[in-house]
């Protein structure tokens, strides 16, 4: 009996013109958007490769250790096709220097007076990601980007509601419900049959669009999915099913409560507009639970200034006992100063000089003192940077990160946003994955410092003078950012998935309980 019911419901849906129209439109939208998204991905990839080449050239041309400025990048993630998340918006390139700690964002910048902002751009000792990849024309950001998940989120949830709104109310109106229940069949089975049939019908457009997308991707050489990626895509499909089921059950619940299909339809449509279109934007626009965070930023800035002063004092104390006089790196008040360097190449980043000064005479009596100075000053600078980095990171978790998390939490009151965040977690384009990238960069910086220590770079002459010829940069460790494993992605998606599942269960139970009591 259950089978007959499912069979009949399925045929009813599948043969209807509305189902046909829905599938056609979904597929059209998916194909058009995949085309656009693959193009955007290719652009990002090209930009990535070009920047990598430029960075490598810049490193090879670096004459001394101290002015080495490494740039690392996050390779574009092909799964951003499905869920763009932060991937296409969040910056990619990150400066790696022995004395600057990578952080997610640099929240101190906007409390500085404007003139200073211009001068530094950012707080030295903290480096945060720059521009996102692949934007030749940043004005095009005025057009919002759409990913495949958005198509499912908007179109399929609408279809799910349209399947559900007259499931009970419509049958009740036409009297078929009474007819069906006159058979020896439980009310639960009727609900279940309707649910299963609708979910199968909803799964069809999802799978078809997935198929089309994968075919399109296989034609584009730039988008290559690994074995793990298919597991992630599987996770995304699973989340999609759970999400669509939420909307179907919302429709079913409304349909059981109301007596008329027309009323049920209106309620469903308004619920849909609110949950999918209005609420996610509204919560971000109207609610600002963190309020003003300037005070925290200011206090962090003061702490950073104190750390710097302390380091400055130590440097001065060291220089007081040294025959080097005057300000580093030229020490212009030292005796026999003019004889020390030829040419002048140095710049300050923060308060530490990056030096590329050719020595006139490597046997000059002051040269060993220069060595000693840098051997002292560079590790001091590293310690200093680490302290600043500690303050900076704490500030980021207190301000930017907390703000982003609050936004997410509030948005998650809508199942549509739950779905967005869950899929972003699967695809590795969520906040946690960006934090992974920063962590990898931090680890990379530590290996860089270790390499410097191994080669005794701080005490060497190549730290400040190019006299001994070019440095062999092939010893530098390679930066390699590996996306988190599938298991970790799954873990991150789990809370949202769980919430969606719970919503499902609650909705189904509610519908069931009401349906049992309903008079037919």
């Amino acid at each position, binding site marked *: 009996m259950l089978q007959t019911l499912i069979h009949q419901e399925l045929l009813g849906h599948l043969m209807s013109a509305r189902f046909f*129209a829905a599938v056609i439109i979904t597929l059209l939208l998916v194909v058009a958007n995949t085309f*656009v998204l693959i193009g955007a991905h290719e652009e990002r990839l090209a930009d990535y490769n070009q920047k990598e080449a430029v960075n490598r050239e810049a490193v090879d041309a670096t004459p001394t250790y101290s002015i080495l400025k490494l740039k690392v990048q996050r390779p574009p993630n092909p799964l951003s096709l499905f869920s763009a998340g932060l991937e296409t918006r969040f910056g990619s390139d990150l400066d790696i220097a022995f004395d600057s700690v990578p952080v997610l*964002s640099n929240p101190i910048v906007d409390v500085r007076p404007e003139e200073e902002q211009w001068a530094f751009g950012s707080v030295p000792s903290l480096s945060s990601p720059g521009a996102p990849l692949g934007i*030749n024309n940043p004005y095009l950001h005025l*057009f919002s980007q759409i990913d495949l998940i958005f198509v499912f989120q908007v179109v399929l949830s609408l279809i799910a509601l349209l399947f559900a709104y007259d499931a009970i109310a419509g049958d009740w109106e036409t009297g078929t419900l009474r007819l069906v229940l006159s058979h020896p069949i439980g009310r639960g089975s009727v609900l279940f049959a309707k649910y299963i049939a609708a979910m199968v019908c909803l799964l069809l457009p999802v799978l078809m669009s997935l198929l089309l997308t994968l075919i399109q991707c296989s034609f584009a050489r730039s988008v290559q999915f690994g074995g793990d990626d298919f597991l992630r895509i599987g996770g995304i499909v699973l989340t999609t099913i759970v999400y669509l089921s939420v909307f179907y059950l919302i429709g079913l619940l409304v349909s059981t409560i109301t007596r008329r299909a027309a009323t049920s339809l209106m309620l469903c449509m308004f619920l849909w507009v609110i949950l999918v*279109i209005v609420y996610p*934007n509204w919560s*971000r*626009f*109207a609610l600002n639970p963190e309020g003003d965070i300037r005070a925290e930023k200011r206090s962090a800035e003061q702490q950073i200034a104190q750390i710097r002063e302390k380091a400055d004092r130590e440097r001065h104390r060291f220089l007081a006992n040294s025959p080097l006089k005057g300000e580093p790196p030229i020490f212009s008040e030292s005796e026999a100063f003019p004889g020390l360097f030829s040419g002048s190449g140095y710049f300050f980043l923060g308060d530490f000089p990056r030096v590329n000064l050719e020595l006139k005479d490597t046997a000059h009596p002051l040269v060993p003192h220069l060595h000693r100075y840098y051997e002292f000053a560079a590790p001091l600078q590293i310690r200093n940077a680490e302290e600043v980095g500690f303050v900076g990171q704490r500030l980021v978790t207190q301000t930017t990160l907390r703000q982003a998390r609050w936004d997410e939490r509030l948005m998650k009151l809508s199942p549509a946003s739950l779905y967005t965040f869950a899929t972003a977690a699967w695809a590795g384009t969520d906040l946690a994955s960006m934090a992974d990238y920063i962590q990898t960069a931090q680890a990379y910086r530590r290996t860089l410092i270790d390499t410097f220590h191994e080669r005794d770079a701080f005490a060497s002459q190549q730290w400040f003078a190019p006299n001994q010829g070019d440095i062999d940069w092939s010893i530098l460790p390679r930066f390699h950012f590996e996306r988190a494993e599938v298991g970790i992605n799954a873990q991150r998606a789990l809370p949202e998935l769980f919430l969606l599942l719970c919503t499902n269960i609650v909705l189904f139970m509610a519908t069931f309980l009401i349906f049992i009591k309903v008079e037919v």
Partner: protein
Amino acid sequence: MIWHIVTRELLDHLTSLRFALTTFIFVALMVTNAVVHLQTHPERVRKYSEKVNASQTELKSRTELYALLQKGPGKLYKRPSSLAFIADGGEALLTDESVSGGFWRLYDLSYIWSLGVPRLNMEAISNLRPTATAIDWVFIITYLLSFIPLLFTFDALSGERERGTLRLCLANSISRSILLMGKFFGSLITVLIAFYCAVLLNLAIISTESWTQLSGADWGRLGLIVLIASCYAGIFVAIGLIISAMTRESRLSLVLLLLIWVTVVVFMPSTLGTLSTRWMPPIQTHHQFQRAKGAAIDQIRSDFLNKREVLREHRQSAETSQKEVAGVDTSELEIQRELVSKDMEIRERLSRQHLAAQSAQVLHARRITRCSPAAIVQYALESMAGTGFNRHLQFLEHCRLHIRQFRNFIVEMDRADSESLHFVGVRRGMSEKSVSPEAIPVFEDKLTFQDTLNPAIMDILLLVLLLGGVLSGAFLVFLRSEV
């Protein structure tokens, strides 16, 4: 007769559940919009006036003509629109200040101020917070004022046909066109009643604050905006009637309408925009632009150095032949002036070209997205509210005009001084008289009614044509349909 139908339709709609839900959602969103505007706008205005004051006091503190030329008019700021609550227009991305070009020194020469490529505030995009659209009037109108008319019309004809009342109605001496008009106005007026209530509430909240002084022109613009919105709602009422007349079943009619809505309103404005740029010739990347600029500047510098070398040799031979030095001195000033002014011109020209290429791409994409009425309304409302891309281009144009005026002023002042050598751009060749601070031209970003209307006229025209088109489409379809 038609009014009889309209009033009946109206009464029907006004007492329905959908009208209550519509009113609720419009009012909730409009109130949110007004409250957030009241919270954020004063801060924006205060910052603007602070920045403008600071930049003007700095400008007035310079009295030397050369310093004025070198430091330029300072930063020029975009005035925040008093109607910013209508259209957000991506203002967070588009910066509100002009940017100066490069800084350099060569011997005793140095740069003079030039207008650079406007930077964009990438912080607005590349932050960690989840993306969301602002709940401005544009959002409320483009999404809801299209969605809700469909809910009122999807069963207007197909539903009556299903119940058989359509046949009954047409059996009376009512022509089909009258019936259609009655349905059209009945639904449109219902939707607009809810919308106007919300609009009035929104404006009432906004005008409670004393600092929101909406001028006469602002009210005029608001009136036009409401008209545009009504026209847009009319388009979707007509679309709803077309599909409703075409289909036998109101369920099918609803599905078709919602799919059309999703495609036209949600997807087309963004997908078409990005899609169209794929077939356009690629523009210079930032890297290429910097390289081209560097090459051009190196070229004029090496020209300058060559000329200088020639001049030195010439002077040495002149000294041997005991000629006057003064004449040679001015020719050195002349090549210096040439370097400085050429450098400034090249910087400005290249930045202008780069910006032109970028904005051509955006404008092209916007032209293509005008297939969707939602995009048309968005652009029209942005122009009317004085925000968005067109306004940004206007602001940059105002900056350019002001700079021309500013430079003319300096040349005039220099010419008025008989002691000056009239080599504008070189310190030694310029007048050393001090300038009275009152005489210096001051930049004030103004937005006239004309400025806002001109770019919007095209969009308004398109909308009206579209409304006519879909309305006549509805007639044709309904005339041919069987009842």
